[in-house]
């Protein structure tokens, strides 16, 4: 088992982290960098709670070997705000009750951000498809769909 120095950019900050071959991106974020906003619900890629953006693409960070993303740029829930102002999705989720226990919320927000970046005006069906990899056990998803659509409308200036 060899150690490597991983160089990654997380939420705009550059980090160098000593990692083993097996260390996952989720472990690096939560344990090495203290970014506990990203959650783990299964550690085997089934629940979506650990979703983060790597080079603007959503990935399940529990399944990503940290070495694979050497040199990449990573965005987590802590990095969604811009200049201290919450992302429209963060505000809409809070406002419409899209978070109950809140545990799936960070991963859900990241998937939703990725969805809106690709499709600024999704239908409810498209939101459902976009969030299909993120499990929520509290809300029945309905208020999450509403919040994503509200944020999208506000983003389009409506």
């Amino acid at each position: 088992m060899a150690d490597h120095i991983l160089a990654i950019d997380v939420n705009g900050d550059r980090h160098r982290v000593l990692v083993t071959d097996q260390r996952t991106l989720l472990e690096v974020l939560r344990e090495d960098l203290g970014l506990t906003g990203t959650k783990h619900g299964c550690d085997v890629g089934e629940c979506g709670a650990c979703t983060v953006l790597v080079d603007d693409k959503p990935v399940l960070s529990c399944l990503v070997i940290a070495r694979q993303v050497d040199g990449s740029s990573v965005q987590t829930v802590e990095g969604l705000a811009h200049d201290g102002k919450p992302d429209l999705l963060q505000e809409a989720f809070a406002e419409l009750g899209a978070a109950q226990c809140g545990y799936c919320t960070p991963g859900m927000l990241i998937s939703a951000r990725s969805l809106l970046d690709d499709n600024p005006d999704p239908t409810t069906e498209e939101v459902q498809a976009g969030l299909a990899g993120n499990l929520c056990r509290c809300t029945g998803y309905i208020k999450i769909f509403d919040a994503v659509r509200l944020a999208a409308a506000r983003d389009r200036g409506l």
Partner: protein
Amino acid sequence: MTQSFSVVGKPLPRVDSMDQTMGKTQYVDDMTLPDMLVGRHLLSIHAHARILRIDTSRAESLPGVRGVITGSDLPITYGILPISQDEHALAVDRVRYVGEPVAAVAAVDAATAEEALGLIDVEYEPLDEVVTLEQAFADDRPILHGDGLGQNVHRSAALEFGDVEEGFARADYIREDVFFFGGNTHAALETHAALASYSQTGKLTLWSSTQVPHYVHRTLEKVLELPAGRIRVVAPAIGGGFGGKTDPFSHELTAAKLSMVTGKPVKINLSREEVFYAHRGRHPVLMWIKTGFENDGTITSMRFKTFLDGGAYGSYGVASLYYTGALQPTTYRIPNYRFEGVRVFTNKPPCGPKRGHGTPQPRFGLECQLDKAADHLGIDPATIRRRNAVEPFSTTVNHLRITSCALVECIDKVVEESGFAGKHRQLPSGRGVGLAVGAYMSGAGLPIYFNDMPQSEVQVKVDRGGGVTVFSMATDIGQGSTTMLATVIAESLGLEPADMIMVTADTDLTPVDLGSYSSRVTFMAGNAAVVAGRKIRSRVVQAVADELETEPGSIVAEHGRVGVAGDPDRSVSWADGVRLAIAATGPLVESGGYTAPKLAGSFRGAGVGISPAYSYSACVVEVDCDAATGIVKVERVWLAHDIGRALNPLLTEGQVEGGVYMGLGEALYEEHAFRGSLHRGPSLLDYKIPTALDMPPVETFLIESDDPEGPFGAKEVGQGPLLPVIPAVANAIHDALGVRIDEVPITPPKIVAALREVSRGRPGRVGPVTIPDYEFTRLTRVEVPEGFVTP
């Protein structure tokens, strides 16, 4: 009189919602302490075996390992119910299910802890397993809790209210049905975690993802033999509960013990697989229902038998057993009622309370049977339910006091909004609608251990700057109890919920609330908060009245000011009012408590089912079924819920939607299934919970019946709305395809099998046909309550 409210009834966000969406909310596994160790459990690989020897020496000598403990280090038994003290934190002498914790390790990191587990040598002597009901009732299997061979009955119950035979004698139509409800589990997104820290001064702190800090506190006191005053239990943010974090768990005790042994903080976070073994989810229940009807659908008599597969330990099982018989009469006037139930032990993870605790299973059977009877009698499903509906302010045959009740209004609402009358039996083949109802308790009437103290206490302290701090042990598991308390206090003081400073779920800092179970928090903690809030308010109002030289009766507290109603010039700011009150009468600290009225009858089992108020729900589900594949698509759900009063409609609507979601999962997908004694798939890939793609639109209707004893008239919403969803799905599938799947979950292969029966000219039904030949003894006959009116 119409009450007017300032914040009650407004759809405000949770008070902590921005922390949640910014990723700042701290759950147990997000916490670290200096010099913290990582703990792991070694799990049993046998469903039933004697432990002949455990050798931990190789693990102990692995560099980085700081502590290893086994059952002999924690020999004292515990269990959530005082009558079921049958668990050990780590197995002692014997293991009873695959996945039962056998040893625990604390090490400098997770990899070392896991390596150490592999170095623990356990020698087992496998024993015969008890897996099915039949095996549990057999005489030639080992007794799980005891020695020798014999039956594995944990507890049985037999109660008769009125005279069922007399009731059947006057029935025009009697039918008997058998149903099965498969077990399922909570699957909260956060896996259970505990962090323990034992200080040099002999004080233990445990942060745990628990719904019941008070009961965990008591369990630590008992098992660790520490004085309660030296133990602090804190529940930080909890990532979902649904009843799955309502028992004291092994890892809470082993983390604490390992911290005491090593002198360092120890954190144990269960893996997803371990959560499936820790379980405490829905009991699999086989049931037999015999009901007599008059020709117009009026129920004359009912017998209900339930058989619960409890798994390896007691947990809440005695209560779960009685709950399978308790709430049927809360929706329908059943004049004569006999309930017989039995819970058995098997070599599987222990079952316990999941959302609806013991009542979704009989509700499924009852509501499906009612539809079958309506069909036979030529009555529509709504009419037969209205005809038998309980009335407000009545007493049930099993001695339950009903207060506010908007059951009929709930039925009317969903029937009207869904267009049920125009759809039932009239949609094209493959499409159908189903109706069902339910009722649930707003808190169990009795605490889990006998005592006469309040079931909930709330303290309020007001700072000289006007800041209001609310202290309560109520545990927010996502249902919004913290926001509920903030709303109640803010309403009392004329402030905003977001201004309240909330200190919750900490046994050192907060007065007792028994926990987030039995849908008790809004009713009980809410009522305690009403009392505390009123006391603070009246002191501030008195001080301001004195200052303005007027009567307190003319003073109002609203929008952050306290003064003469309708006269802004004669008012002071809230903070000034607070300073006047402190100057006049001293520290502004008050408390309130809530104790439920004494409602229990005097018969054995009378303590289960009583509640200060019941919520009511009615549900219509519309489905589109594919006859070739058996796949069911739920098109839309209409759900009306009698909530008494919605303190916060946004949060209560969220509870309804979540309950519908969980009900759909149970109806169609989820099963805690076993191959023999081995879990079929302890993962979120194999255990199918609904995804975003599976969720239909839900139309929620909140019916406000203004309960006379609820806080501002409120009742529960966390559990009740799940109940009618499951039978409504089954009834809709029958409407769509003409087949009866009397077994949950209703999976595509069952539908295809039922349709195949139809094509062969046989009845289109899949489900159990017989029940075990178990003789219920010691029937208790209970007189009908005084004032009970036979329909």
